[in-house]
């Protein structure tokens, strides 16, 4: 399942890149893209694990001072 989320607090492009790498490395994630300019996260993850993946992504985002908006 591929879903797009708005991000809040993303000021630093380096953080965006780090976040993208961190989320892409999570278990169950097929692909992750962070669009720094438009402030969004595009998450492609396995359907049955999606909620868990999202929660794990929240933790990654927190490291970079960013919130994933639902």
């Amino acid at each position, binding site marked *: 399942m591929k879903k797009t989320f708005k991000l809040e607090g993303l*000021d*630093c*492009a*380096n953080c*965006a*890149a780090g976040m*993208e*790498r961190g989320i892409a490395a999570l278990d169950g994630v097929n692909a992750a*893209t962070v*669009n*720094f*300019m*438009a*402030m*969004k996260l*595009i998450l492609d993850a396995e359907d049955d694990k999606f909620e868990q993946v999202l929660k794990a992504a929240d933790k990654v985002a*927190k*490291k970079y*001072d960013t919130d994933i908006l639902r």
Partner: protein
Amino acid sequence: MTRKMKKTLYRIIAAAVLFLAGMILKRYTYVHAALLIAAYVLVGYDVLLKAVKNIGRGKVFDENFLMTVATIGAFGLGDFDEAAAVMLFYQIGELFQAYAVNQSRRSIAQLMDIRPDYANLRRENGELEEVDPEEVAIGDIIVVKPGERVPLDGVVTEGRSSLDTSALTGESIPRDVAEGDAILSGCINMNGLLTAKVTKPFGESTVSKVLELVENASDKKSHSENFISKFAKYYTPSVVFAALALSILPPLFLALTGHGSFLSIFPGWFKRSLIFLVISCPCALVISIPLSFFGGIGGAAKRGVLVKGSNYLEAMAQADTLVFDKTGTLTKGVFAVEQVSPADGFDEQTLVELAACAECYSTHPIAVSLRRAHGKDIDKGRIADVTEIAGKGLSARVNGRLVHVGNRKLMEQIDVPCPEGAAYGTVAYVAVDGAYAGFILINDVVKEDSAAAIRALKSCGVAKTVMLTGDSDASGRRVAEQLGLDEVHTQLLPGDKVDLVEKLLAAEKPGAKLAFVGDGLNDAPVLARSDIGIAMGALGSDAAIEAADIVIMTDEPSKIPTAIRIARKTVGIAKQNTWFALIVKIGVMILGALNMANMWAAVFADVGVAVIAILNSLRALNTKDL
């Protein structure tokens, strides 16, 4: 400025005041120290807190941590002034960076401020109500008053007007619309009142699609961005280790070779390594690339060129071979009479008149062009016995005379000899009462700006311009000559086009890109196969928007050199920023290692460079003169 930014600004101002007070009262050592520490904590507490939190989360090479180490290290060395100043300037820089990024985002939003805010919905009782365009359904009737922006895609049911399509096409030439014509959201209704029936919901309207396309274009990253991200990943740890090495190895070496004790030599080198720590953040490098491309994409959209990904814009800058489809791309795809060649005893006007009359009932494009060339109304009473001869033409009685209009085979059938000719186009031969009357050459008309477009491409440095067509050899070659194309391939079947593009791709130099330009409807496989697929005439064509990587809203081939120029400017800005940032950072690092630079230089190399790069990126938005 957001609330968060305003809060930070107040903290900075307060801390600056404390700092200045501390500097003024320098001789009162304890007061001085206290004020400076207060300034430092006030302006930097969030950095310190984040540093600690992130270590807990495992993020060691975090700029917060590195800044903390650098400034506390400076305090440790007794450089209270520098420590506080560095933190102060770091925060000022970070604030400016956040502000500039925000401004960029807003500038582009403003540039693309084509979104309609409301629609005048006509309710069943006939009254007009101002509603959110999202609430309007397909089939609803809306009214667009003069001066208003068309809120939704629809078909005019009443009224006539001119539309300013510049929000979508970048063109200021108005388009006339009347009953039955389609109107597109985003356009501005200029002078007449229009009533229209909505054909698409707001989410699927042209303006929504365009805005979505521009926003999503940053999802697809350019090679430069990916490269810099990877580079940045290794940059920070490398600089930190270099800092570590710089703080320990030289003092160790010097101590061991008898230049003094380790502890006495260490502070000097430690100080230099702190400079490295301040520079270790790659923000400037990373931030300016997406910003430049975002600007470039927004600027291109303003010109009616929709680029669906930063990677495509980047590729356009390296476009070396341009392959064009002929019909509908370089030509209008509409037939028109080009030449009238009457035989003895006939004149041009009569020939066209007879042919047009004979073809008066036909809907064939040839018949349409004959009638258009004739230009006058046809009295159908003068025409009788219209007989179609499949595959060859037709015959009719015009004012009593037997007129045959058709191809060579028709002339052969009725035993009328006609001259051989270089048929570059479609020839309609005419026979009157069994005698040859002449021929009319009908051709697909080349677009007005095609020749200029090819010239502009060549002056842009495009090495090869190629045209592909299914048309006859004579036809194709003639157009190629007219336009000055380098290569032409004719009589192609659809499958041949793909093969040819494959061959051209194989012949490409490494790094050079091939762009194919078509109308999006028939060229999907070729568009997909090319490095860059460009579709034209996308205004109102969903298929074209879907099919290509770059979509040109109007029918003008001259937008392609524009796209190349925008691409080159954008990539140029991204490159400038990258080199500038690298040179300054490495330069300051070298100077710092040689004790020729202090913390102030380091702060500039970190924050100053980022700010300059961001400001430079904003130039990509300006595509007016391209």
